[in-house]
């Protein structure tokens, strides 16, 4: 059970949070201009990395804010947490 440092509330137990999948997949600004393949890439394709992964998390049972997390999926180490819109930390 992780201890997650919500950027708005501080450290809270994992059960207050909801994982929201891979981070930094921007919704295309002009979807209608995309081919089926390009749209499918946005819609369906997600990485499933063993190692350092960028993820979206939501403090669902807290402040309801979304934020980003850098997590090593091989040992669940949370390497960084930052707000939506902020630049991911360089590796």
């Amino acid at each position, binding site marked *: *059970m*992780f*201890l997650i440092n919500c950027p708005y509330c501080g450290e809270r*137990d994992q059960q207050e949070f*909801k994982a*929201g999948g891979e981070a930094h997949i*921007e*919704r*295309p600004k*002009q*979807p*209608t201009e*995309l081919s*089926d393949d390009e*749209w*499918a890439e946005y*819609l369906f394709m997600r990485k499933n990395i063993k190692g350092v992964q960028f993820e*979206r998390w*939501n403090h*669902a049972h807290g402040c*309801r*804010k*979304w934020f980003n997390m850098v997590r090593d999926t091989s*040992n*669940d*180490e949370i390497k960084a947490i930052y707000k*939506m*819109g902020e630049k991911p930390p360089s590796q």
Partner: protein
Amino acid sequence: MTKNLRVKSSEYIDETNRISFKFNGKTYHGFKGDTLASALLANNVHLVGRSFKYHRPRGIMTSGSEEPNAIVQINPGTNRTEPNVRATEVEIYEGLEASSQNCWPSVEFDIGGINNFLSPFLPAGFYYKTFMWPASFWEKYEFFIRHSAGLGKSPTSSDPDIYDHRNVHCDVLVIGAGISGILAAKNAAKNNFKTLLVDEKNELGGSTIYENNEFNKIDNITSSEWLKKEIEEIKGIKNLEIKTRTSVAAYHQYNYLLARENLTDHLETNDKTNKIRQRLLKIRAKKVILATGALERPLIFNNNDRPGIMLSSAVKKYSEFYGVACGSKNVFFANNDSAYESALSLYNKGINVDAIIDIRDQSESKIVKKVEEAGIKIYWSHTIVDTAGYKRLKSVSIMKLSNDGTSVTGSKISISCDCLGVAGGWTPAVHLYTQSGSKLKFDEEKQIFLPNQNTSNQISVGSCSGDFKIDQIIKNLNQKLKDTLNIKETDLDNIKVEIDQENSKRNIWLLPSDKHLGKTKPFVDYQNDATAKDIKLALREGFRSIEHVKRYTTTGMGTDQGKLGNMHALGIIADTAGVKMGELGTTTFRPPYTPLTFGTIVGRNVGKFFDIFRRTPMNDWHIENKAEFENVGQWKRAWYYPINGETMHQAVQRESKAARESAGILDASTLGKIDIQGSDASEFLNRVYTNAWSKLAIGKCRYGLMLNEDGMVYDDGVTTRLGENHYIMTTTTGGAANVLGKLEDYLQTEWPELDVYLTSVTDHYATASLCGPNSKKILKKIIPDLDLSDENFPHMTFKEANIGHIQCRIMRISFTGEHSYEINVQASYGKDLWEKCMEAGQEFNITPYGTETMHLLRAEKGFIIVGQDTDGTMTPIDLQMDWIVSKKKYDFIGKRSLYRSDTMREDRKQLVGLLTDDPNIVLEEGAQIVSELNKSPIEMLGHVTSSYFSPNLNKSIALAVVRGGKDMMGKKLFVPMENRNINVTVANPVFYDSTNERLNA
């Protein structure tokens, strides 16, 4: 047979407090402080159970939670009975009853014992090989296996005890109150760390407390005496909480641990009442200090499982701690000095020790010299090749061990004995360490796995980190404490330690016998009856991975989780396969470390509060008027209101007719309501709904359909524009929380530039839906000054009004196809509003209707219910709702997906109406639909999603999704049921008033 083997008073046993208890129906006596195991041993009872596969007689082997054999059923036949309890962990109390498991009819005469003689036919993988063929026989085999296995019985009535959960936060958690744990906790607490010290036993001090080794001294007194003083001292330290009888079951990431605190299991039955039995501690610790100690290993030799064969450390603990002699003729079998400490302990208490068999060729330590001086015969370089005695050990046969340790030579010597203490060295208890995700490495010299790479803020100290001698323990502990607590000095800096330095050891994983391995029974896992030859067989059959060998042989898979035999299994695999143990790795130790009761996991029984119900403000009225309820998510919704003993069908038919003929009223308070405000609210709605919102005038309502980005229908509902920058959105009852979550997600992550604020107001309003041709007259009676004319208040518009002093929002919208009003008031006025409507409607025979009638009425109109007629694979086009998808809008959630090749397929399942040829037959929801009956396999075209008998049309109607259904209007299809095929015809899904005349009436 019964004799008292109590040797000397012990400070941990209260001999003035005599306790009687029953084991297998017979009454015995013990003392306060005894475990069930120590009390049985004091009564010379060793035989306590039968092994799982061969039903071999088994005795008490250990004195702790690693016990594989003495597994008993506590208080059988009562509602507090508990199976699979280790006799070594049960503290006895007056009236305790226990019985052996896995034996029938009794432990003394067990029919399953025949398996022992059949054992050549029960090798590793026996169950997999035999019972899987032929497949049709499995049911018969299962019956047989379940009856002969019989590992304990669960209680048949409800648990009378109370359980609890507690969250605990501390700076330092110390696990294990042996010498290392006590010193660690003391120094942590004294340095202002909020410290929690837990131990699974009821006494502090671990094994050092009864060590009484005259050669191990701290500050000039024995380590045992010294530790007792330390224990007295820590009891008064503030910042330090000590919990005994508390076993850590699981160690998760981020120093999150689960521990079970045992509060009443040791009390007499009368004292257990109304107290919390066990408490699950959910611990978050900033730092964890693992001081879990080490477990003594057995040695693996032929017939090493007879009752009377025990761990040497257990023999010692029973004598020193409980004052019990485990035998009257004791022999030890050793590969290190530990057995000598035990032998000397017995000798000093006047208990007979006949011999020590040692596979080493010598030892120079002081304690060995002392044993020699005592005149105890030591057989150096010897090994046990066999043992005798069925229900109790009678003798051991020994032979000289070859230099390489792989064979035996010379003549056989038989030594008679009734207790054999086995000392195979010590294995650090690293179970919790690995559970935390930290990694071990194998120490080739010590032949043990040691903590290596920590993943969380933790340290391992004492014997669980491979330090077995007191000087080493204290020196390393001192340094680790300074590093981890960041302190400069400790009270360990200046203590003086003297120890017996010799620590030689000879490790042989599988000891040879004069017999061929195939004719021997060297048990590795006692509980699962896995022998060394099973492991070798698995390797011969091609298993290589330790995880596979474990499953194939069932080694280490019992309730003891291989605490004793795991290392030997690994060693034998490594030796046989010719690889290094370090390369082999170890199996995963999974939580719980010791079994937990279901009660502990569940926690407090809060009855109806376990899953919270949500009730509407009108709920009391529904109850008073005998409504039947249905669960919709957490909501309790009025389902139908039977009168005069009506069936559900009768009630629904009556309610449905009344709503169309005169007036009906529905409690719609559960619909999700989201308040949307902000200067970009219109733009936001444009993006989340399929239709256009910018031009919706203030005071108007509009139905909206919300898609997922994949184009599939997600939710629907009516949204009303209350002001320039203010909307109220309604969602489905079940979808409210998810819709809010999804909208928040888009606002926060994709469109942070939009000025929009969302607030859930579902619980803030109560909603009564008035429907039917007389609804207008009823509303007029309630709010006489509101102009209800079609010009002033047409369909799909909204008005604010007052009923008396109560403000309300009224939407003229309809989910039934009738002229309807949804009246929203502050939740606390909900029941008043409802009663006013009922009173005003009395002259029109206003009929309250529930969710079932609502579903029927909307189905007559062909209105979908998201989640019933859709299942996450339906686009608006599939639902024949093209009219709601804006062609002009550049983008909205899911728009692009509607033009994917897959979503544009003509043969997708599409929503249609179905009419049965026989109007009295009502289809079953979920029934399959086919076009041809004589084809094999029959192609399934779709299924029925909604189906009712319509009282207003006097025939059955159904909605269905059918592949290519849009172009099948009028086509004959079949719904095959168990006993008949029902003929149906595809129809328009709007069955009633397709021109919407009634809406505007």
